[in-house]
């Protein structure tokens, strides 16, 4: 695997940014500054970053209700995101979308999406664009284990194969859809085989290990960018928080999160891997962490201070013209 120091540092920065962003929101939300429903991505950083490190602004992704990590990994402005989650007028979506609808089309980020299974069909369209407009890009959709049972996702897989478009389906199996375990809701208990049944290759990755996801995505983009049609990536992972902020997580063994935080923390795994192999000095990683913490502090400070939207804003942005 070819990956430069700079890229590794950037990847680590992205992962830490996601983690700090989410940990901070988890704390701040209890103070009442943030409205609406919020789903945190912390724990799954290796997947978002491992995938998006292969993408440029020409490539597109579409995300889920649990979208912060994908947004950050795809290059959305962190301060704009924080403002959006705080519902500010200068948030990334002017306070109209909030946590579940963050998008940045200039970055190829086609939006978080509050409808489970809403994204994959849209990404098929983005892949059609890539093919017709010959951009060389790929379109990526992220879906959870729960979403993998939604009819729209199956339709998208079949259609992508039929149209042979550069579309990569990323399945993040974090073990749960809301309060229900993966092993209950996926009848076959095997997303990989089910996906292969649609006629596309699946690249498996360790969802806690950036390098593993990165390698799977390398193979996936190699295939899809060169006209090989769609494929999928499957990664098992975990979320460190509840389904939404406020979830008492009664479905989870009491020690599950603590154990996973100790043993399956993608940041720790990354650090261990790069320092043990002498790929990066620990000090560089520390520095990144400090910088990220400052950035998140600043993001929250600016978000808290930013102006709220006004009643007049309700009426704008419905149509381009009407």
């Amino acid at each position: 695997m070819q990956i430069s120091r700079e890229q590794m540092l950037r990847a680590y920065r992205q992962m830490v940014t996601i983690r700090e962003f989410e940990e901070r929101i988890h704390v701040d939300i209890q103070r009442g500054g943030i409205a609406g429903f919020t789903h945190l991505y912390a724990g799954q950083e290796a997947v978002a970053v491992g995938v998006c490190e292969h993408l440029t602004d020409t490539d597109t992704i579409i995300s889920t209700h649990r979208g912060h990590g994908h947004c950050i990994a795809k290059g959305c402005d962190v301060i704009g995101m924080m403002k959006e989650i705080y519902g500010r007028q200068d948030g990334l979506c002017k306070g109209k979308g909030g946590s579940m609808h963050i998008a940045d089309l200039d970055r190829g980020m086609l939006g978080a999406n509050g409808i489970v299974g809403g994204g994959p069909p849209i990404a098929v369209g983005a892949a059609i664009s890539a093919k017709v407009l010959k951009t060389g890009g790929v379109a990526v959709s992220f879906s959870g284990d729960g979403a993998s049972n939604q009819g729209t996702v199956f339709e998208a897989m079949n259609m992508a194969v039929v149209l042979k478009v550069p579309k990569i389906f990323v399945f993040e199996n974090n073990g749960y859809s809301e309060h229900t375990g993966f092993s209950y809701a996926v009848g076959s208990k095997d997303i990989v085989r089910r996906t292969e049944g649609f006629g596309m290759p699946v690249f498996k990755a360790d969802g806690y290990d950036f390098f593993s996801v990165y390698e799977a995505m390398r193979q996936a983009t190699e295939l899809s960018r060169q006209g090989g049609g769609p494929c999928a990536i499957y990664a098992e992972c975990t979320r460190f928080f509840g389904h939404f902020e406020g979830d008492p997580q009664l479905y989870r063994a009491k020690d599950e999160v603590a154990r996973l935080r100790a043993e399956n923390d993608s940041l720790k795994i990354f650090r261990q891997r790069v320092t043990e192999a002498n790929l990066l000095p620990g000090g560089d990683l520390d520095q990144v962490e400090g910088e990220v913490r400052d950035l998140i502090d600043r993001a929250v400070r600016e978000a808290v201070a930013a102006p709220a939207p006004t009643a007049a804003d309700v009426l704008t942005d419905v149509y381009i013209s009407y």
Partner: protein
Amino acid sequence: MPKISMRQAINDALHLEMERDPRVIVLGEDVSGGAGGTSGEREAAGGVFGLTKGLLPRFGEDRVIDTPISESCIVGAANGAALTGLRPVAEIMFADFVGVCMDQLLNQAAKFRYMFGGKARTPLVIRMTCGGGMNAAAQHSQTIYPILTSIPGLKVVIPSNAYDAKGLLLTAIRDDDPVIFFEHKSLYMDECEVPDGDYTIPFGEAAMVREGEHVTVVALARMVPLAIGVVDKLAAEGITCDLIDPRTTSPLDEESILESVRATGRLVVVDESPPRCSVAADIAAMAAEKAFHHLKAPIIQVTAPHTPVPFARELEAAYLPSPEKIEAAIRKVLSGR
């Protein structure tokens, strides 16, 4: 009588009816929760808003069915179960999600009986959470009931308080036609006096929430408590209103509305849906046809604007009809302009 929340009232109704009738089943995403979890806690949720809590331990997995995220199949399965002898109560977590299962409502449940020449019986209830007020943004805040009210073959129930919710839900489950039962998420914790036992409220009978002389106000769901505040405030000024809560929009109690409008000559319809092809428009048009000669002023609709539901607190507050807007509409209709 004890005061209980609308959430509790709905949960009570589900318990009562499942106890009474073994054909009643409940299905939906996380209606119990915990299946396949690592804690072994089999009822880990009881619905994301807790509406179905306690049903699994009491009635077991055959009758309280957790499903994958597959709304088309949830409603479809409810349809099929209803056609074959059960009385399913399915939950679509948010009304906004009808988008992914609309066919099973629009073209299946609503039409079986007619297409099959009167031979089908589809006794099902689909419960869904609707409405704004929780900053849940564009995909988790819609009312949706205008769309479903437009569909012949469906019945549409929209309670505005705990008492009505319980009585209407018991009616709904016992009804032999497909019923869509809307629960406004901002009303779940509202409390009122609710009898312990069994009682039903017939469909197509509006509640006369307040009686007055000058204006007829028709309001739905969360707009009812808002309108009560306004109407009571104006009463202190000597402006009195009939305040009517239709409770079901299909069937609609046209007569109660028309009788009131014939007496007051003035009509304000309040609903938080956007304005086009809405329930507010529907009621206004009905009155403009059937009570025209008694009208003394334009019929005013107080609705959300023709926009999606915005996220930020300030935006959503400006989006939803407010007491101020309702009051202004009543004053305007009184002015006759």
